[in-house]
C-alpha cells in the first residue's frame, strides 16, 4: 500500500514546492515586468534593428515567392520582382551588396505578426498601407506603388462600361478585401451581381477566361499580369475605373527610427534618381555631373544626412548601381519590355510626368 501511495505523495510534494516557489516569485515577476516595460521603448528608440542588420550582415525582408512581377522566383529559384528589388536596394545601400538579403516568404496572415515581432527587418510584400496597420504593425515608409482595384471585362460579354454592370456575374477571390470592395461598389450604385468565388487566385482567372463570368475584379496590377497570360489578351479590357486605394508600401518594425529613416532615404533616393536621370548604367559618370542635386544624391557634394544615419556618403549610388532607379525597377518587371507583364505607369509615373511618385529633395 505504501509503495503505491509513495509516488502520489512525492508528486504532491514536488507540486507544492513548485506552487510555493511560484507564489514566492509572483511579486518579483510583477516588479520585473515593470522594469522591462520601461526598458523596451528606451532601448527601441536606439538602433536596435539597424544594429541587428549590421551584425547579421544581411537584411531580412518579408516577401513572397508567388506574385508575378512583385515577388516571385526565376527558373533557378532566385527571388526576383519589384518588391524584392526594393529590398536589394536597401541591402546595397547598407552593405554595398544587393545579394546581402534573406527573403522570408510570408503569407497574408503572417505579415502583421512578422513586423510586430520584428522577425523581418523590412516588409516588402505588396502590403497596402492602411491606418490600422500603421498603428498596429509597424512604420510604413513611403508609397512605392499606387495600386487599386479595377475590373476586367471580356469583349464577348458585350459590356463596355460600369453602367452596364447590373446583373453581371463576377469572378472573385473569397475572403479578401477585394470581395468586400466589390460588394460595396455594387451596393452604392444600386446594382446587383452574381459572384462566382474561388479560394485560389489562379482558379478565379481560369474560370473567367473560360467565360463563366462577364467580369473579374482584383488589383489592377494583378489584372494586367493575368491578362498578359491569356491566350487572347486583346479580347479583354481593363476598365479605367478604380474602386479602391491600394498604396503598396514597404514597412519596418516599430521602434527603430534610424532604420526607418534609412529605408525611407533609399526609397526616396530611387525616385530622385529617376527624376535626375541617374540610371544603373550612368551612375558612375553622373558622379561628375554638373547638376548640384545629382552630386548631392550620389554623395559627391557635402553630407546630406547619410553619414548621420551610419551609411556611406555613396550609399544611394551603391543602391542605384545595384538595382537602378525607380523607373528602371518598374520597367524591368512591368514596363513595355517587362519580364513579368506590361502595365502603363499611370499613377506610378513621376509627379513631373503627371503621376503620383514624388520624393523630398536631397538638401
Amino acid at each position, binding site marked *: 500500500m505504501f509503495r*503505491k501511495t509513495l*509516488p*502520489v505523495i512525492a*508528486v504532491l510534494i514536488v*507540486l507544492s514546492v513548485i506552487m510555493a516557489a511560484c507564489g514566492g516569485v509572483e511579486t518579483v515577476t510583477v516588479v520585473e515586468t515593470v522594469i522591462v516595460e520601461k526598458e523596451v521603448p528606451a532601448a527601441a528608440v536606439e538602433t536596435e534593428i539597424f544594429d541587428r542588420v549590421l551584425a547579421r550582415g544581411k537584411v531580412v525582408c518579408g516577401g513572397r*515567392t*508567388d*506574385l*508575378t512581377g512583385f515577388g*516571385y*522566383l*526565376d*527558373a*533557378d*529559384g*532566385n*527571388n526576383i520582382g519589384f518588391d524584392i528589388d526594393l529590398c536589394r536596394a536597401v541591402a546595397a545601400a547598407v552593405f554595398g551588396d544587393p545579394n546581402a538579403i*534573406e*527573403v*522570408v*516568404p*510570408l*503569407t497574408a*496572415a*503572417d505579415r502583421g*505578426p*512578422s513586423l*510586430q*515581432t*520584428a*522577425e523581418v527587418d523590412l516588409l516588402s510584400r505588396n502590403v497596402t498601407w492602411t491606418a490600422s496597420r500603421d498603428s498596429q504593425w509597424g512604420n510604413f515608409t513611403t508609397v512605392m506603388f499606387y495600386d487599386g482595384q479595377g475590373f476586367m471585362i471580356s469583349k464577348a460579354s458585350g459590356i463596355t462600361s460600369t453602367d452596364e454592370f447590373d446583373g453581371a456575374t463576377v469572378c472573385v477571390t473569397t475572403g479578401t478585401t477585394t470581395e468586400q470592395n466589390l460588394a460595396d461598389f455594387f451596393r452604392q450604385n444600386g446594382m446587383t451581381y452574381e459572384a462566382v468565388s474561388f479560394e*485560389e487566385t*489562379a*482558379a478565379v*482567372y*481560369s474560370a473567367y*477566361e473560360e467565360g463563366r463570368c462577364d467580369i473579374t475584379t482584383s488589383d489592377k496590377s494583378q489584372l494586367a*499580369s*493575368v*491578362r*498578359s*497570360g*491569356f*491566350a487572347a489578351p486583346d479580347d479583354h479590357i481593363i476598365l479605367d475605373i478604380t474602386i479602391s486605394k491600394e498604396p503598396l508600401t514597404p514597412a519596418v518594425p516599430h521602434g527603430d527610427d534610424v532604420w526607418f529613416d534609412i529605408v525611407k532615404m533609399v526609397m526616396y533616393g530611387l525616385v530622385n534618381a529617376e527624376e535626375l536621370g541617374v540610371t544603373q548604367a550612368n551612375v558612375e559618370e553622373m558622379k561628375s555631373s554638373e547638376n548640384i542635386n545629382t552630386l548631392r544624391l550620389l554623395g559627391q557634394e557635402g553630407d546630406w544626412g547619410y553619414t548621420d544615419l551610419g551609411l556611406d556618403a555613396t550609399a544611394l549610388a551603391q543602391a542605384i548601381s545595384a538595382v537602378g532607379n525607380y523607373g528602371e525597377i518598374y520597367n524591368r518587371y512591368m514596363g513595355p519590355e517587362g519580364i*513579368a*507583364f506590361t502595365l502603363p505607369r499611370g499613377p506610378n509615373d513621376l509627379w513631373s510626368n503627371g503621376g503620383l511618385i514624388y520624393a523630398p529633395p536631397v538638401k
Partner: protein
Amino acid sequence: MAATEVVQETKRPPQPPGLLKWIRDNLFSSWGNTLLTIVLLPITVFILFSSIRWMFVGADWRVVTQFPLLYTVGQYPRDEIWRVGIGLSLIIFMLGASWGKWGGLLRSISIAFSIVFGVFALLPVQHPELDLGMRLYLGANVLLILVGYWIGRIQYLKGGHIVIGWSITPILAILFLSGFENSSTLPAVGTTLWGGLLVTFLLAAGGIVLSFPIGIALALGRRSSLPVVSAFSTIFIEAIRGVPLITILFMFSIILALFLPSESRIDRLVRSLMAVTFFSAAYSAENVRGGLQAVPHGQIEAAKAVGMSNFQTMLFITMPQALRAVLPAIVGQFISLFKDTTLVVIVGINDFLGIGRSIINSDPEFMQLQVEVYLFIAVVYWIFCYLMSLASRRLEAAMGVSSRL
C-alpha cells in the same frame, strides 16, 4: 519454306477460350448488367480517351519538365546543391547497407531507388539541369547502394552498427544542408531557401521519427497510475486532437512568435516541424493505446510471475504485441502525416506544393497551366503514399499481423 509454314500453323495458339466467356459472365449476365454495360462502356471509353488525349496532346508539361531542381530542392542555392546530393547519398548508402544486413522489404526499396536513379541518369532527353555531372551523380548513387549492400553483408558488422549509422546520418545530412556561419566551404544556407520535395520529406520523416516515441510516451502516460502524468497526457492528447492541424500550425508559426522574445526565436521550419510532430504524436498515442488495451492482462501477469520488472514487461511483452496489433493504423497515421505536411504552405513554407504554386505564379502564362502542375504534384504524392502502404503490407505480412494475433 513449306515446312516452316506448317510449323507456324501448328504453333499458333488457340483462341483464348476464357475471354468471351468472361465477358458474357461479367458484363452481359442479365438484363440489368447488359443495360449497365451498354450505358457505361461508351462513357468509360470517352473519359479514358479524352484523358489520354489531353495528357499527350492538350497538356503543356513545360511547367513540370522545366524546373526539376525547383521541385526537388526549391530555392536552395544552385552553387551549393552538391550538399543536398551528399545528404541524399548518405541516406542512400545507409539504405544499401540495411539491405545487405536485413534484406526483405529493404531489398525492394533499394532496388526501386536504383531503378529510379538509373532511369534518370540514362534519360534520353536534353535538359539543362540534367547535365553530365548530374547524370554521373545519379549513376553513382546506384553504385553507392551496391557498395552499401556489399558492406552490409560483412559478417562482423552487427545490426547495432547500422542502427547507429541511421541515427547519425540524418544529423550529418542536416548539418551539411544548413552549413555553418562564417564557413567558406560550407556557408550557412537559411531554411527560408529550403523547399520542394526536400522540405516535404524533411517534415514527413522528421515528423514520423519524432512523433512516434512521443506518441508511445503519451500512450503510456495516459495509462499511468500517476494522476499528474496521466492528466498531462490526457490533456495534451485531447487538446491537440480537438483542433485541426491548421490551427496548430498557426499557433506555432504566429502566436508562438508573439510570446517568445525576439532573441529566442525558433526557425520557421522547425516551428512547423514541431507543430506537425505534436499533432501526429497525439494521434499516434491513441493508436498505441488501442494496441496496449488489446494485450490480454494475463500476459502482463505471466511476465510478472517470471520476475520481470515493469520496464522489462513493457519492453519485451506488452509493447511488441501492442505495436504489432496496431501497425496498420500507425502506418495509416504516417501516410496522413505525409499528406498533411502540405498544409505548411499556409504558414509560408515552400514545400513541394508551395513550390508548385510559386512556379504557377512565376510567369503569367503558367497560370493557365495549373492543372498540369497540380496533377503532377498529386501523382507524386500518390506514388509515395502508395509506396508507404505497400511497405506497410509487406511489414504486416513479415510480422504475421493478421495471422498470429
